[in-house]
């Protein structure tokens, strides 16, 4: 007779065996699946123009193609390669022409044509679309024939050349989807190598697109998983649950260098970290006080603290951006000059200055609190009275942007700015043109004129010269913000994952990747 106790013992033993054996057996499948542990979540609205979130931008890049591709390799930031467009040229100041690839299909089976480019560009550039802040302005698109489009900006009064690099960043949607917003928002439908399957909680699944114009990718499936904690991402990578882990901490990068199963990668990003001064209120409405603060900051000490996570740069854009140059008059560490400027502005030794609040975050970028404390100490050394406010990301994000009255809390803010194409204007205009100046509120006619001039310069070589000789030196003389360093990003991946391409702004291209 079988007793109740025997049944319980048997069941317990079966469960215990199952506990040890199941997880390992469950992985033994033929499908090549890459689980990508992402630090950024998805919004659930799959219209790429509906958001400006980093995580979903990276996700979009797996699904949607663009007219061009910008690999953004160091030292070759002006290179554009064909994607949905095979060639492109500036016709005149307000017209940019693209010749399109033939035989491309969307994931839902529809054919790609010039009508899709027209619908996408005209829709995405509308000022009320949230992602329009990533693009230079509104456009009209002329369909010359089914495989030729012309981006036209004459009606809106700015040069069409500003879309030259942005063509590598604006995801191409299907015209039929744009006509049906509910459909557009409910699932992503692109032409890239992976197509969307489903979302379950924080995991979204993509599968290889058989009809991809350059051939089906070797990876069968991508699971895009939101894993907010960096330690969890690394441990999941180490135990084989994930094949890619985004945004490792610098210390994690170091400790994984000697790991047998994980390959780590460090790459310069398109992001610079800035100390923004609130230029529309005292005392930082006086450029001399801003310069005094800059001269008080020893950036070498900050870089020593950042270790692998930061690289020295003396410019307002990252070295991965078009036009980057070392600005000759970029403020250097010079406490004597800082003291002189304070005295000239009427605040000798900082006497008479109000207490200044410096707002920074914790848990969003590496070591912001640590170098925030360092900067505060260095500023106090020359006489500034600084109070450091460290906020968690949600509170920090609320604090940094100016409110409806044009003002924001505090006097200084620590903010990074990462955009997805080599185009420098995507950094320059939102930050320092008075029409936006989202954080620092600077309103300076000279800066506006300099930014307008570089944007209106059509010839790339000439534009680079204007940036290097006029725009950047002027910004360095007035420092509405102080670029502290250029940020480095770290990724970890399973050693058997080969052929993945890591863009400096975050996305990962798995079109040519394979698990070997």
């Amino acid at each position: 007779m079988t007793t109740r106790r025997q049944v319980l013992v048997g069941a317990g033993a079966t469960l215990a065996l199952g506990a040890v054996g199941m997880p390992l057996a469950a992985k033994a499948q033929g499908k090549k699946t890459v689980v990508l542990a992402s630090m950024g979540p998805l919004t659930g609205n799959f219209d790429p123009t509906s958001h400006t979130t980093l995580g979903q931008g990276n996700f979009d890049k797996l699904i949607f193609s663009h007219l061009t591709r910008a690999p953004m390799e160091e030292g070759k930031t002006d290179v554009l390669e064909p994607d949905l467009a095979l060639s492109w040229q500036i016709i005149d100041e307000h017209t940019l022409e693209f010749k399109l690839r033939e035989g491309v299909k969307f994931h839902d089976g529809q054919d790609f044509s010039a009508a899709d480019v027209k619908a996408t560009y005209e829709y995405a550039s509308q000022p009320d679309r949230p992602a329009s802040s990533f693009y230079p302005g509104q456009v009209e698109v002329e369909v010359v024939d089914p495989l030729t489009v012309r981006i036209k900006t004459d009606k809106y009064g700015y040069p069409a050349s500003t879309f030259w690099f942005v063509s590598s960043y604006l995801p191409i949607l299907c015209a039929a989807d744009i006509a049906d917003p509910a459909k557009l928002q409910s699932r992503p439908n692109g032409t890239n190598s992976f197509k969307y399957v489903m979302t379950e909680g924080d995991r979204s699944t993509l599968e290889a697109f058989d009809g991809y114009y350059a051939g089906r990718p070797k990876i069968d499936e991508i699971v895009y998983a939101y894993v907010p904690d960096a330690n969890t991402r690394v441990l999941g990578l180490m135990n084989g649950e994930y094949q890619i882990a985004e945004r490792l901490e610098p210390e994690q990068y170091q400790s994984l260098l000697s790991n047998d199963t994980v390959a780590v990668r460090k790459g310069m990003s398109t992001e610079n970290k800035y100390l923004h001064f609130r230029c529309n209120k005292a005392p930082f409405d006086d450029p001399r006080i801003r310069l005094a603060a800059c001269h008080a900051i020893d950036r070498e000490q900050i870089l020593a603290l950042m270790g692998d996570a930061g690289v020295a740069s003396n410019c307002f854009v990252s070295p991965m951006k078009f036009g980057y140059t070392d600005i000759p008059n970029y403020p250097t560490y010079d406490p004597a000059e800082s003291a002189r400027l304070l005295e000239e502005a009427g605040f000798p030794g900082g006497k008479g200055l109000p207490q200044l609040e410096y707002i920074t975050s914790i848990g969003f970028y590496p070591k912001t609190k640590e170098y925030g404390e360092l900067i505060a100490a260095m500023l106090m050394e020359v006489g500034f009275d600084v109070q450091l406010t460290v906020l968690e990301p949600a509170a920090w994000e609320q604090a940094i942007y100016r409110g409806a009255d044009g003002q924001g809390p505090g006097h200084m803010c620590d903010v990074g700015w990462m955009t997805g194409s080599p185009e420098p204007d995507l950094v320059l205009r939102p930050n320092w043109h008075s029409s936006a100046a989202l954080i620092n509120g600077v309103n300076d006619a000279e800066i506006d004129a300099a930014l307008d001039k570089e944007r209106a310069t059509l010839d790339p070589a000439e534009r680079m010269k204007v940036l290097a000789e006029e725009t950047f030196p002027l910004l360095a003389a007035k420092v509405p913000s102080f670029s502290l360093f250029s940020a480095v990003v770290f990724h970890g991946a399973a050693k058997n994952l080969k052929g993945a391409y890591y863009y400096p702004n975050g996305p990962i291209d798995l079109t040519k990747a394979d698990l070997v």
Partner: protein
Amino acid sequence: MLFAVDFFLRRLVQGLVIVVLVAMLIFTLLRVVPGDPVRIMLGPMVTAEMAEETAQKMGLRDPVPVQFIRYAAQVISGDFGHSFVRSAQGGSTGGSRGGDTFDASNRAPVMGLILTALPYSLLLAGLALGISLVISLPIGIVAGLFSGRWPDRLALYLSSLFVSLPNIWLALVLIFLVSVKGGLLPAIGYQNWTYAILPALVLAIELSPVFIRSASVAVSSNMMESYVPSGIIRGLSRPRMIVAHVLRNSMIPLLNVVGIQAIGLLLGSLFVIEYAFNYPGVGLLMINAVFQRDFPVIQAIAILACTVLVLVNILVDFAATTIDRRLQY
């Protein structure tokens, strides 16, 4: 019977007052601390005007008491509202805009999110409680039976060790040793029930000291009661005396500990452990909701957690009075 009706009526009314007070506190605190949910809902680059317009439309600029009364009326009708940031498909954050501004119909109902996550948390909590009792009851009982001798000291040392281990540190170490190095158990996320074992072990280790000490103190104090030698003199064997009487009487304080302290501890630690293991339960939902200022989700989980604690408290007290009729609560 009359006692039971009187007991439950009285205690449920008291419990309701506690839940309402906790709900008011959470509701007010969320609106006082910095962090505007509208920017998270609509994305960081949203214009200040649109953020303000949306906040006003959603009633987030109304006085807190007005907002609370509106929310309470909604909850009483059984509707915990929609998440500010989670989409109907389950995606986890805001930062997007549909037609104009915020569209509630596009966001997941809070109760749906909780009901999806709850089974995972129940599995984890049940497993943790089970493992913890299996570890701690034998140790605690033996320590109580041999009070002052080496089993008692061993129990004390073990409890001290377990209570000194920070759960987040233990979680990372166990993931590293058992999952990464040993390859014995999975650890991150959830694919099947085996993913709950390692986080449950961490929770169990955290719970065990309380159980070990309660069991050993209860058994030891009962062993010193006069009924033990009396029973043995009257012919009951020592094992029977222990099993049938000492252990039974020792269950009352243990029940209280399990019911109140352990459930409270479990609820708190569950949040941290689920986050560390990326385990998709109510705890992870809550932590992400806090990061994203998802007020409706935070409020609902806080209210439900408080309700569970109050109900467990009532049931434990009722069970204790059933075991020992002399007790009055």
